[in-house]
């Protein structure tokens, strides 16, 4: 048997391939991104990026209508975006196997909330698998495809950060070739007019009974015999933590966590004196077990933390009272992530801060503009939220009888986020006579999640695709004041932003520059900037850029790290005493490189 060390996400991709998967798409989102990224490596499968999670599920559902085995992957909050088609898909079922992967983020390593998506399975009546390692992630994905067809239902696979981004040993299998059946209309099944939907709801309830029976006998739900004093019920990564923390207990391991196997749970409860429920997030299993009235003491969230991730030490301390022994350290500086040296977003936030604008923000690398020293983003709610939030502030301020322009309201949103869900609130703002200024930070790529193409990507590096031009899109809505400005042209950028926030009409500013980490930008050897300590007056202006290449010497002078600097020259522009200069003005630098890439892009478009 061939073995490999795979991450949970790579394993899900492999399982989809082995299970004869045909089509996959996704909107990138940590910790789910690598699933479809890895599926793209298999030539038998068509895989692509979608504009958001809702469209990705709609497209995958359509492919399933036509009998293609399909997969869609998203981060936990992505399923909120896709919730509407998700609930309908449950009624419609699956012709070609349909797998929906939700990757939750307990501990919020890269998310705005810690929601527990197991409730979605219960809520939409969609069966759910939860792997506890990479090998199971692969096997469950593969099986979910055929089970989805057998039970005529979409199938949810719930991962978490520690499943998706942990590597463990996987036994590799071969691909099963499956034909795409082809589209055959089925009006009563797929057109959810109330008259059809009422019948479909009956079908869903009958299906649930069958799935419940299946869950009882499913290989992934099983009792692992141990001592009878303690029984442990656990799911996903919590199973691994608990197995290590309490090795001798009797375990009820659950890989299928909706519907749950009632008889198996009762059998397990009859074998043990008390039950510990070990789960991250909400008391999902605990609530269910307690409602079953098992006649055994059940301990869960009274001891196990409701917030954050678990690990074996936390489980041991919570349930067995074993306190860890460890070295304490004094308070040390934290190391927050920062916008990169040469990042095109930096000048925009620097200017917004100087203008004392009130900024609603959105989700992407540029959310880092909220952190000191840039500190120029008041809100960050969810994908696409910035424009609606700013417009709502405008409405409330106007209702107080104030001129909302005095608030200097600006919504800041990235290119990929704008396509994802920024277009509709801009229509709201425009149509309802709003005047808030919108800045679209266009770096030509979905950068935060590791450079996935989006509809505006100038440089498609896999398959040639049609480009959706942001400026034309915005003008198409009807916005008249649309200005595309070079993000590094700070003088013009400041002038335009200052003018537009005082305009009594809606306006959109597109701040454009390619991401400094694009492959065309990154492969170069750049010169660097030098700060002359004789000329530096310690005015602190360049420190306020928050550039990781800029630091302060002991005698409070600017020092620029030549290893990190890419010679973008933004600090040269902000220095009031000309103390900063490029080491070699003739050599390549990130500013020049960006212009070359943009120039190349323009040629491509003609």
């Amino acid at each position, binding site marked *: 048997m061939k*073995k490999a*060390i795979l991450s949970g996400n790579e394993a899900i991709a492999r399982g989809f391939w082995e299970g004869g998967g045909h089509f996959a798409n996704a909107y990138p989102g*940590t*910790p789910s991104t690598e699933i479809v990224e890895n599926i793209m490596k298999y030539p038998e499968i068509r895989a692509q990026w979608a504009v958001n999670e809702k469209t990705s599920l709609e497209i995958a559902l359509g492919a399933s209508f036509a009998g293609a085995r399909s997969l869609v992957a998203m981060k936990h909050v992505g399923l909120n975006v896709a919730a509407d088609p998700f609930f309908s898909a449950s009624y419609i079922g699956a012709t070609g196997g349909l797998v929906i992967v939700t990757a939750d983020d307990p501990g919020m*390593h*890269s998310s705005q909330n810690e929601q527990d998506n197991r409730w979605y399975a219960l809520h939409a009546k969609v069966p759910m698998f939860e792997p506890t*390692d990479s090998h199971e992630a692969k096997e469950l994905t593969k099986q979910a495809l055929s089970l989805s067809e057998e039970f005529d239902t979409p199938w949810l696979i719930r991962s978490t*950060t*520690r499943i998706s*981004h*942990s*590597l*463990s*040993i996987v036994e590799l299998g071969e691909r099963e070739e499956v034909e795409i059946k082809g589209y055959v209309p089925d009006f009563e099944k797929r057109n959810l007019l109330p008259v059809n939907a009422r019948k479909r709801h009956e079908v869903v309830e009958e299906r649930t009974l069958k799935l419940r029976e299946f869950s009882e006998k499913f290989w992934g739900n099983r009792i692992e015999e141990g001592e009878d004093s303690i029984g442990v019920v656990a799911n996903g*990564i919590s199973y*691994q*933590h608990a*197995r*290590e923390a309490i090795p001798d207990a009797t375990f009820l391991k659950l890989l299928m966590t909706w519907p749950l196997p009632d008889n198996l749970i009762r059998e397990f409860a009859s074998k043990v004196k008390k039950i510990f429920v070990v789960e991250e997030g909400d008391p999902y299993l605990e609530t269910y077990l307690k409602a079953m009235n098992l006649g055994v003491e059940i301990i869960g969230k009274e001891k196990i933390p409701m917030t954050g*991730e678990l*690990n*074996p*030490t*936390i489980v041991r301390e919570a349930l067995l009272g074993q306190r*860890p*022994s*460890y*070295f*304490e*350290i*004094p308070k*040390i*500086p*934290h*190391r*927050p*992530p*920062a*916008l*990169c040296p040469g990042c095109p977003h930096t000048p925009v936030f620097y200017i917004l801060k100087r203008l004392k604008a009130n900024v609603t923000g959105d989700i992407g*690398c540029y959310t*880092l503009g909220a*952190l*000191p*020293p840039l500190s120029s983003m008041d809100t960050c709610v969810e994908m696409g939220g910035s424009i609606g939030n700013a417009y709502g502030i405008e409405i409330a301020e106007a209702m107080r009888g104030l001129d909302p322009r005095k608030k200097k309201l600006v919504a800041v949103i990235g290119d990929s986020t704008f396509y994802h869900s920024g277009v509709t609130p801009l229509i709201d703002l425009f149509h309802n006579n709003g005047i808030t200024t919108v800045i679209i930070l266009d770096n030509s790529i979905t950068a*935060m*999640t*590791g450079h996935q193409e989006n509809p505006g990507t100038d440089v498609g590096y896999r398959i040639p695709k049609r480009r959706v031009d942001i400026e034309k899109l915005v003008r198409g809505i009807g916005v008249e004041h649309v200005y595309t400005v070079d993000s590094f042209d700070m003088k013009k950028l400041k002038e335009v932003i200052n003018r537009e926030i005082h305009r009594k009409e809606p306006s959109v500013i597109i701040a454009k520059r390619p991401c400094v980490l694009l492959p065309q930008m990154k492969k170069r050897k750049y010169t660097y900037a030098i700060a002359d300590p004789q000329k530096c007056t310690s005015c*602190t202006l360049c*420190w*306020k850029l*928050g550039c*990781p290449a*800029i*630091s*302060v010497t002991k005698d*409070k002078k600017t020092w620029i790290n030549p290893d990190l600097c890419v010679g973008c020259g933004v600090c040269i522009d902000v220095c009031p005493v000309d103390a900063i200069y490029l080491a070699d003005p003739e050599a390549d630098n990130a500013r020049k490189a960006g212009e070359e890439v943009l120039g190349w892009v323009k040629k491509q478009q003609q």
Partner: protein
Amino acid sequence: MGKKTTTVIVAGVGGQGILLASNLLSEAAMEAGYDVKKSEIHGMSQRGGDVISTVRFGEKVYSPIVGLGEADVILAFEKLEAMRNLPYLKKEGMVIVNDYRIDPLPVASGYMEYPEGIIEFLKERVKTIALDARDLAEKAGNIRTMNVVLLGVLSKNLDIPEDIWLQVIERRVPPKAIEANKVAFRLGREVAEKAFAGA
């Protein structure tokens, strides 16, 4: 080592090659016949934030991560990150630390001070090998072999045969860089040998 699970926390700053190093370690452990799990965090940490990768190997590994006071070795690519992760180390554990400083943003922009005397702080509490891996990487002929120098030090402290390490390095690094990486690995091993001779 036998049935016991060994845990190594590889810590440093985004962009230092931590994930490659922990991949090499995982692969070497798998080749040596162990069960292996590795955990890492992507996302925000890529933008110059702190990065941790945990590698665990043994006869049977359950959890891919550990809590406070549980790791056997901290392999730190930057000294402030060694200090940050010290609470995860067993009291009888070991720190291998690159004596190298990268200022985090609160220090660079003048809000906080970089702590003095980190190496001494570590040495007072726990078995510590401190080295200038950047300098040794330069001696090996390629500054990018810094992570392999550190793996060389680590390898002397783990139950994985040297030839397995060398095979994995040969397989995973670009052909042009194989020789420099092998030299870097040996330089790291020498540091560990000297440290034990002196102990």
